[in-house]
């Protein structure tokens, strides 16, 4: 066994020994991946896994290093990028990935990617020509 494998075992015992918690957070993450376009809120997410919402935030952050909300937003932005590359309009994309306001989608997209959705789309479409 290498030093690295021993270290992995040590960390596994330290961080990943609670299988129930791990099942819960993996379940939440998969649920977000499959339902990112829906109106997901914490009450809803915590109801699915039968845990309180504050416990849920703490657990998710403990295992994934970010809150469910942050993860949801990152997921939506990634999905939006894919749709824009496929040629979907900015407005359609905004609602298709679960945002409710075009203004907040555009500014969030710009914050996260450095480009507005339409700038991003133009750059991507001209690249593929």
């Amino acid at each position, binding site marked *: 066994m290498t030093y690295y494998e021993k270290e992995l075992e040590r960390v596994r015992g330290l961080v990943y020994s609670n299988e129930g918690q791990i099942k819960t957070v993996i379940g939440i*993450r998969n649920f977000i991946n499959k339902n990112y376009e829906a109106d997901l809120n914490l009450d809803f997410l915590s109801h699915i896994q039968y845990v309180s919402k504050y416990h849920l935030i703490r657990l998710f952050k403990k295992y994934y290093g970010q809150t469910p909300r942050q993860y949801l937003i990152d997921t939506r932005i990634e999905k939006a990028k894919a749709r824009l590359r496929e040629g979907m309009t900015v407005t359609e994309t905004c609602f298709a990935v679960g945002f409710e306001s075009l203004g907040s989608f555009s500014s969030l997209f710009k914050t996260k990617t450095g480009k507005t959705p339409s700038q991003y789309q133009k750059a991507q479409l001209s690249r593929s020509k």
Partner: protein
Amino acid sequence: MKVTLISIPVLDQEKALQFYTQKLGFLVKKDLPLGGGNRWLTLVSKDWQDGPELLLEPGPLHFEPCKVFQDALMDAGMPWTQFDVDSVDTEYDRLTKLGVEFSMKPTEMGTVKVAVLNDTCGNYIQLVEEL
């Protein structure tokens, strides 16, 4: 400031180029001569071509401490760099068929699954899938 480059120390840039493109599936982004047979050689992920570039950096060949550090990581079986994949099992099967050696088979670690491969250029590389 933006993070756009990840460096990997390699003893032989040409050999690394073959491995990272033909086996792992990266694409060449930039390749220019820097004199003395050295190149500024960067690759990008096929699925994320506007993502960060991977610099195949010939440090171990010219800078002894870099070689010492690289060898120590290798002795410890420790990957310094990791790549995200959709499925560690799929990549493990695909790469094993291409003759790539793994020091660690796909292994679950809580919320991730990881495997470690030898890049034949002095490094272990970890593949990771978030579960």
